[in-house]
């Protein structure tokens, strides 16, 4: 699914990713943990094609294709989805309108028919309640006036409807209360499939109790410095990142 080789990327003068390697096979869920500022969000932006980030070296292949050659919307249509650490507000654009515009844009890019209004409504009505998203939230402006937790749940609703191949979740657990964490995890787990891979960025082991990863990576100063099974997350919870700080210094 995803193969990242020696990825170097910078924003302005700052090099933030410094030779990152990561492979996620089809159907696997990989978690990335790492201290603040280690470049986790940067990785998610570079993968999803945020314009300000410049890749200076390395390669990213996605389903065999050169991901870096595509612009952001083409990557989305190809199946890359980023659940934002800080979802963006778009005043005046009803959440429903946005969802539908996104679905149809991706369909159009893939040469598919637009979704009909009844089908779209049916789909939303089927998926929204499970994520605790009310009619009111669907009518309101995209993320406008949503609580932190509501924004995160809204991201998962978008992800559910768009059915991406690669889901990148950037700290989707931050700002969630215990119940919401379960709701979100349930939503994410429902999307696990042999054809879909996930990259879950988190600071806390407790998310990984709910979304059990196949592999856990430790990111530090723009590189993956260690990889292991789910038990690695437990170990980090105990001892923190001090050991890596010395290695990489």
């Amino acid at each position: 699914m995803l193969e990242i080789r020696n990825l170097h990327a910078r924003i302005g003068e700052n090099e933030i990713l410094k030779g990152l390697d990561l492979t996620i096979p089809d159907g696997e869920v990989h978690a990335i943990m790492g201290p603040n500022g280690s470049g986790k969000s940067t990785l998610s932006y570079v993968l999803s094609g945020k314009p300000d980030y410049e890749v200076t070296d390395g390669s990213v292949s996605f389903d065999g294709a050169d991901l870096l050659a595509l612009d952001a919307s083409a990557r989305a249509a190809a199946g890359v989805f980023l659940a934002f650490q800080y979802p963006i507000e778009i005043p005046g654009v009803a959440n429903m309108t946005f969802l539908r515009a996104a679905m149809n844009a991706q369909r159009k890019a893939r040469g598919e028919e637009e979704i009909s209004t009844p089908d779209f409504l049916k789909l939303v009505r089927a998926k929204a309640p499970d994520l605790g998203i009310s009619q009111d939230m669907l009518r309101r402006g995209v993320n406008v006036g949503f609580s932190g937790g509501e924004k995160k749940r809204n991201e998962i609703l978008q992800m559910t409807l768009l059915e991406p191949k690669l889901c990148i979740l950037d700290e989707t657990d931050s700002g969630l209360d215990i119940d919401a964490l379960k709701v979100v995890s349930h939503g994410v787990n429902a999307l696990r499939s042999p054809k879909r891979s996930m990259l879950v960025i988190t600071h806390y082991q407790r998310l990984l109790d709910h979304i059990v990863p196949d592999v856990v990576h430790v990111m530090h100063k723009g590189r993956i410095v260690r990889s292991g099974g789910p038990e690695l997350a437990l170990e980090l919870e105990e001892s923190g990142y001090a050991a890596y700080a010395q290695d990489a210094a």
Partner: protein
Amino acid sequence: MPAVQETVERVRAIDVDQYKYGFVTDIESEKAPKGLSEDTVRYISARKNEPEWMLEWRLDAYRRWLTMEEPTWARVSYPRIDFQDYYYYSAPKAAPKSIDEIDPEILKTYEKLGIPLRERDALLGIQREGGSKVAVDAVFDSVSVATTFKEELAKAGVIFMPISEAIREHPELVKKYLGSVVPVSDNFYATLNSAVFSDGSFVYVPKGVRCPMELSTYFRINERNTGQFERTLIIADEGAYVSYLEGCTAPQRDENQLHAAVVELVALKDAEIKYSTVQNWYPGDKDGKGGIYNFVTKRGDCRGDNSKISWTQVETGSAITWKYPSCILRGDNSQGEFYSIAISNGHQQVDSGTKMIHLGKNTSSRIISKGIAAGHSDNTYRGLVSAHRKATGARNFTNCDSLLIGDLCGAHTVPYMEAKNASAQFEHEATTSKISEDQLFYCLQRGLSQEEAVALIVNGFVRDVLQQLPMEFAVEAQKLIAVSLEGSVG
């Protein structure tokens, strides 16, 4: 390249030559000789078989106009207009008696514009969502060539006809109201219009009548160097209600075309007039050459107590827009509203806004203005809210938001407030924002293209105003907004 930067680049590469309605209809037309003199005025009046009093009215206006100076206070710049270099009248050769006599070329043009005059639909009243009917009084160049729905309206006692006909058929109404809101000597362009106005709509809704359908007029400019001087007069008698829709688009032209319209609205006691415009005149090519100069005087007089006038406009076209639909709140408890979306792109210059003149007691007004500037354009909101000494309890709420796309455009807000009565309550809010890179990226990450993202965000920005438009118009307007920004992102 940052997303916004990229938008800027694309806006720079704008190809307004692809202007959607930039086609020209080939029909023979009859023109007044080029230039403006008393003879031109007499020619126009004669061509329209006007009574003597109308000719005198025009000549009076013409003589006043000669003494007036072109105003220069607006934030727009353009080469000096040579008023002798225009034609002031052109008409399709013979005035048709029925729709079958209408030049097929004209009908084709309307079809391209989505006005299926020939369709049974239209003849029966265009049925759209919600089942409302829209009457189309089609104005082609300077003369109305088709009027439908007249009979149904006549049944309700509503008079809806070209003003040239009203001058002959209802002289008492025209004499009473024409120039009563915008006096002959009001301003340079209005005075010019008074001298040479070509045609326009006349609406009279009698006492207590709710006009049974929305009234609509489509205007086009189609003759090289032909000034278009629309004159519209709408009167809602006591307790009457009418909603009037005006939409226009014009074919591509090299030379600048002059347009100086005057619209007068009179609302008597307990009456309400809702006037909606979607304006899409040719904005000029990518260098800003050849667009329409649009100098408009629109004013509504809330003459009676408890009357209400509401202006809603979507302005996307014209090279120069100079336009301030206003309300004179004369009657006690009268209300004025102004809802505006003004989009400028390429080299367009928009100076638009409103005046709310509070004269009566307990009058209120509301102004919601959304300006969107892209490309090299300049977009100015200019507003005046004033309360007369005797206007106790006057209230105004103004909200002016500007959205910038790129770094080469400008948005300006020039609000004037004058309260001569201490009880006046005026509130003013203004914001200027840019489409943020984060918003754009969020949309792109969900699969939207750059153009789709911009259109979506802009439509969100103007939502409050779009909601004021009649349903079928709102849909059209939304498309138009996308189209006008489509040009901006390649």
